[in-house]
Structures are given as C-alpha cells and as structure tokens.
C-alpha cells in the first residue's frame, strides 16, 4: 500500500481521493477516519503482515485535529514504535499555528503542510507530495 490517509473530514477525504485519482500514476490508498483506528491498523498489522503479504504504507498523511486521539498522539506513537518510525509521516492540516508545528517536528514529523483553501492549489500540493515522497524519496525498506 502506498499511502495511509488519516483524516476525519469526509469531504476532505473525497477531495484527496479525487486529486490522487487525477494524478499521473495510480496509488493505493487506505483511509482511516480516526486516530485510534489508524493506530490499531498499524499496530495490529504486525501478525497479519507476515501472512497476508501486506506491506507497510510508504507514506502516512496525517491530519491533526481529529476527535478522540488527535494527530499529535498518533504521530508520537508512530515515531516511538520501532517498526513504524521509519515510515515518512507528512502532517496535512488546516492549522498554521506555531505551537502545532513545533510540537509535530519535536515528535519527529517528516514534513508539515498546511491544506490550501483552493482546490487548484490543493491538487498541486498533492501532486508534489506524491512525487517527492513516493517517487523521489528512497524509503528505508524496499516494499
């Protein structure tokens, strides 16, 4: 799987999927709508991993403001877990607050992006993220 998207807003998810669909090369995406589900998916995956031939995501796109466990806590957990911390996590949020940025980088986020308001810019951003993290960047593990 290429991208794990952790995002609670349905419409943001739809826009994201639409943008990715329109991009140059196809992507496999798994969507989790809240932090707890995302963590369960990543952590429980351990045992099923060997059998199902499932691989880790190559990129995690993580929203910050979610009900229940928020993005900060998900980020912290991922970056503290031995077999997960190598996966690049790009924070994709509507918050440009300094304290959110600092906290994310302190927790080990690989990148922090603010969701643009226009779709046009959003599509450009998604294309660039895809290009940078999935094509240009070399992952820790070959999947």
């Amino acid at each position, binding site marked *: 799987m290429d991208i794990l998207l952790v995002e609670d807003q349905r*419409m943001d998810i739809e826009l994201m999927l639409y943008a990715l669909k329109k991009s140059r090369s196809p992507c496999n995406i798994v969507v989790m709508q809240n932090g707890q589900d995302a963590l369960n998916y990543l952590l429980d995956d351990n045992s099923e991993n060997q059998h199902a031939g499932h691989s880790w995501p190559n990129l995690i796109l993580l929203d910050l403001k979610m009900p229940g466990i928020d993005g900060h806590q998900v980020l912290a957990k991922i970056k503290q877990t031995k077999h997960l911390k190598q996966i690049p996590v790009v924070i994709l949020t509507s918050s440009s607050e300094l304290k959110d940025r600092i906290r994310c980088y302190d927790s080990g986020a690989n990148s922090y992006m603010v969701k643009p308001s226009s779709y046009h810019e959003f599509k450009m951003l998604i294309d660039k993220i895809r290009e940078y993290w999935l094509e240009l960047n070399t992952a820790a593990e070959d999947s």
Partner: protein
Amino acid sequence: MTEDKLKNVSHYFSMLDYIHGGVCLLQKDYTVLFWNECLEDWTGISKGDIIGQEIDQFYPHLKEPKYRERFSTVFEGGPPAVFSSQFHKYVFPCFLSRKRLRIQHTTVEGIRLDDDNEIYAFIACQDVTDLTERIHAYRTMRDQAVEEVKERERAQQALQEAMKELESFSYSISHDLRAPLRAIQGFSEILAKEYSTSLDEVGQHFLNNVVEAGTQMNQLIDDLLAYCRISDGQEQGYIIPLQQLFEKIHRQISNQLHEQQGILELPGITPDIYVNESLLMQIIMNLITNGLLYHRKNIPPIVKVSCEIKNDFLLLRVNDNGIGISKEYHEKIFEVFQRLHANEEIQGTGIGLANVKKATTLLGGVLSLESTVGEGSEFFIQLPIQNKNKIDIMKNYV
C-alpha cells in the same frame, strides 16, 4: 458627709480644674464629691447642681449591672476599672455639638483620702473623639485602597481569562469554518473545471460565483484570525532588522504586484533598527495591499513606502495614487468590517485597516491619514523606538 468634707475635697482637687479631661470623685454611696470644670463644660451640669447629689439622679444608666458591678469592685478595694471607647462610648454622656457625642475612654480607680478608711472612686474621662474619627477615616481609606487593589487584580484576572478564551475561540472558529469552506471551494472548483460542459452559461456563471464567494470567505477568515491574534497578544515574537522585513515584503508581494500590474517602491536605505516582525508585517503589508487594491480605473497602482528616524521615533509613510478616501470616513475605515466600496468594484474584507490600527496601538504608535479623493492617500505611522534601536510591543498594552 459634711460641709467640711466637701470643702476639703474641693480644695484638695482644685488643681484638677485645670486639666483637659473630666474628673469626678464618688463616695461609696455614689454621692458626687468633686466635679471638675472640664466636666461642667462637657456636660453642662454645674458643680453647684451636682456636688452632694447621687450620680444616679443625673445618669440613671449607671445603675445597670455593667457599671454597678465594676464600680462595686473598686469600692471594695479591688483593682481599677477601665471603660474603653469601643465597648462604651462614655460613662458620662457629653455632647460636642447638638448631635455629636464625645467619645471617651474612662478609668475608675479606688483612692483613699487622708486617714479615712473609706475608698473613693476617682473617675477620669479622656476625650478620644478626634482620635477615633481619625482612626476610622484611616481605616476606611485603607480598606478602600485594599479593595481597589483587589478590584484591579480581579479585573486583570478576568482580562487574562477573557483573552485566553478569545484565543482558543478564534482559533477553533477559524479551523471549524475552514473545513466546510474547503469542501465548498474544492468541489465547486472541480465542477467548474471538469463538469462545466454539463452546465449552460448561466449555470457556469453561478458556479463561478460560488468559487469566488468561497475565496472571499477564506480571506475573511484569515483577516479575522489575524485581528484576533493581534488582540490576544499572540503576536509577540521575532525581532528582525527592518531591512530584512522589507526584503520579505518584497518577496511576498510579487504575485500581487503582477496581478494588479502595480509598482512598489520600498526604501532604498533602511535605518538600522530591529522590529517586531509580525506586527510590522501586518501594518506594512496591509497598507501596501490596500494601496494596490484601491487603484483608480485604468491607472496602474503605484505604492511608495518610505521611512526615517526622527527623535527616537520611526516615521513610516505609505502612499498610493489610488482612489483616495473622503475625509468623513477617515475614522470609520479603521473599524472592523467597515468598507466603503461594494464588493463588485474592489475585493476587500474590511479588516485590513483595523489590523493596522490594532498593531500600531500595540507598538505604542500613532496612525494618521491624509487623502484626496481621486488622487491618492498617504498613511503616516509614528512608532516609538525602545532601547535606542528596537520597535516592539509596549508593555502596558499586553
């Protein structure tokens, strides 16, 4: 009791007529043996009237146990009695004026006269009216001062809490408003781009309207958030050289310049001072943006920014060749959401200038405006320089 005794007593105690306090001598049976001039003065009862009489005749309240018991102790050879002004205003009521009582501190001591085995009560009354009033006045004043300090602290506390609330409120509002806005804009844009063929001209036009409205709303939220953040003092932050600020502005403004086909002149030589980055950015960017936005039809906007240092102040001027602002609106334009022009002509949010004013005030500065309709405007800002080279928030504003 004999005439002789009375004569002896009055002779013996005659000096006490000269003192500034009341003195009375009572025999064991409560007969008055001596009544000094001061008491005559204070009570209006003359020696002639009261000496030889029982004190109860003139002051029946002295029959009450709270006096009787303590006087008895004295007559029996016991210790003296003290009647303080707080518990009893007086033993002998005396008036200063028609309504004002003298407040007194009275002591009653047992004394012996000659070889008499009898004990007599020596009553001394001290006028403490002035003292009492002064102390009460002092106490009131002091209580008031304490209350004022508490009030100020309460107000300060309330202010802090309100500011905190505003901060979290404005932040969550902007975040919550942006989510559906992203959806509105996003899907409308997609429709306008990729499904336009399904719509006729009118439909496409309406769709464009939706997109435009969304863009405007987003700008509004940005401006409003900036306004709130200036209020809550969040804009305390980086201090950078003024030169660097102008360079940043130059980079950020290039898109807008291109769109408006405008020209921006920034100062060639910048004074060597350090400024609060976000507040000065707010001020200058908003003014430049306005200058570019409010241009005259078919005349490309030219905005000039100049600055100089004079007497510990940084003087900033931003002038433009735009449509100008009529004098009657010179105050109003700095209020939030005040716009002078309908949306069609020029797309502003009405918050920019309010931000400029707020930021200027936080820095302890003054803002003024000169403008001619049809020719242009000049915004003039005077900012105090602290510590010889810094422009930052004035402490009493935070």
